[in-house]
């Protein structure tokens, strides 16, 4: 199958996200992580696993980073986070992802 033809383009998450329209809220992030609770509850690894946009990443020392500009606003991270580990709400009106297809 496939006959050597190209698969879907582009192939990385970053490139796929590059086709989306985002309006970055430079004044505030809509994602806040409590590193201590995250570490204690193992929430960090779950955030990294479930986020389709790859917003979350884990440093070697276990610190969780959140690249909030790429957020697709689905709320899946909040659904798997232990209580107190993550504060996540929608970006302010007019900011964040703006779907053109949907």
């Amino acid at each position: 199958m496939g006959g050597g033809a190209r698969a879907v383009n582009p192939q990385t998450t970053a490139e796929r996200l590059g086709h989306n329209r985002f309006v970055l809220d430079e004044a505030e992030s809509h994602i806040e992580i409590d590193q201590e609770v995250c570490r204690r509850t193992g929430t960090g690894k779950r955030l990294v696993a479930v986020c389709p946009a790859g917003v979350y990443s884990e440093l070697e020392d276990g610190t969780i980073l959140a690249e909030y500009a790429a957020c697709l606003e689905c709320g899946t991270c909040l659904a798997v986070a232990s209580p107190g580990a993550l504060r996540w709400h929608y970006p302010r009106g007019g900011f964040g992802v703006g779907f053109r297809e949907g």
Partner: protein
Amino acid sequence: MTEQAAGEPDFDVIVVGAGPAGSVTATLLARQGLSVVLVERGDTPGAKNLSGGVLYGRVLDEVFPGFVDQAPVERRITRHVTTFLTADSSVAIDYAGGPLAAPVNAVTVLRARFDPWLAERAEEAGAFLMPGVRVDSLLTEPGPGASPRVVGVRAGDDELRARVVVAADGVNSFLARSIGLRPKPPEHHLAVGVKAVVGLPRRVIEDRFGVTGDEGAAHAIVGDCTLGIGGGAFLYTNTESLSIGVVLRLDDLVRSGRTAVEVFEHCLAHPGLAPYLRDGEVLEYGSHLVAEGGLGMVGQVVGDGLVVVGEAAGLTINSGLTVRGMDLAIGSAVAAARGVGEAVAAGDTSATGLAAYRRHLDESFVMQDLRTYAKAPAFLERGRMYGAYGELAAGLFHDVFSLDGSPRRHLAATAWRAVRRSPVTIGQLMSDGWAGVRAL
């Protein structure tokens, strides 16, 4: 909001969220002559909204007769394909139903195009659309009962007051949750949907999917496309693009040790799906949290001064063959508009007065279907659906079609041998078969 007595409502009704649930509720309430504001956090309706893409449209046709000829819908689904996929084989049931074309049963939609049309209908009916405004919280006052009475919403420094607030704020449902109407759902009832819209020429789509004109196909796929993780994949035809995605149950995904991105990319490259997508260009990438608990996840839908509609109320059905959200959202909107209208007319917008919504909802197809499929979520949690049965079906058809020189056996004997060789036991097959018949 300026020169009025404190506590006097600015509107009869505030609807939060301009998706199908919100826009239809706003339309029907405005048609009744009520003053309605429709608040939307996206800078245009649809900008924040995403779904797999199939809308079962009969209920919307009752609200907007002939909508498929006016609204920006993509294709009319006349072909439903359900596929069990293994790493190198697939077994499919392909229903191509001409009668599905008229009257139109299901259409594909792209929400950033479709939702603005719905919101325009609400405006046309007299609702006031307020886009680009995020509602931060409900405005409450001490109520007659234990829970507070909702009297409006707060957005930044602004307050808007109304007799009734309609929470149509989607699956995350911050508003309903903030006053305890809907508890946080368990992870085995939640899934993440990951989707790409892939552009392809119209003619290529029609040739690959065996459709013509404005007809379209909807493929539901289970098995190796999700690497055996509970859930499945979908592949829908739009006019000049495909919607391809996976839906992954969160408990199973976390347990698997894989990432959602990894599974989605595996699906895109799967030999059973890649030929449909070949040479396509990703136009957009998105995701959506999916509530799959069915009846078990429907929360309380009425409070003092508040009703909850659509996904915010937990109204979704996955029957295994069809995945539904938008039609239930619209059905709940119809029930809510009737109930809210009656409550406002009677001058009682407490939970008691608004209970009319719950009664109309209970009598509608929405709750009837949720009750019919009440056992489906538990059935679909049986892990064999996502691996073993695909192996079994592929093994059986391999034996049927592979003429390798060995003596032929009757079909029943071949099937028996396929079961014996598969990971499924006869006991499991009978148990799943019985449960499946009752659940689906």
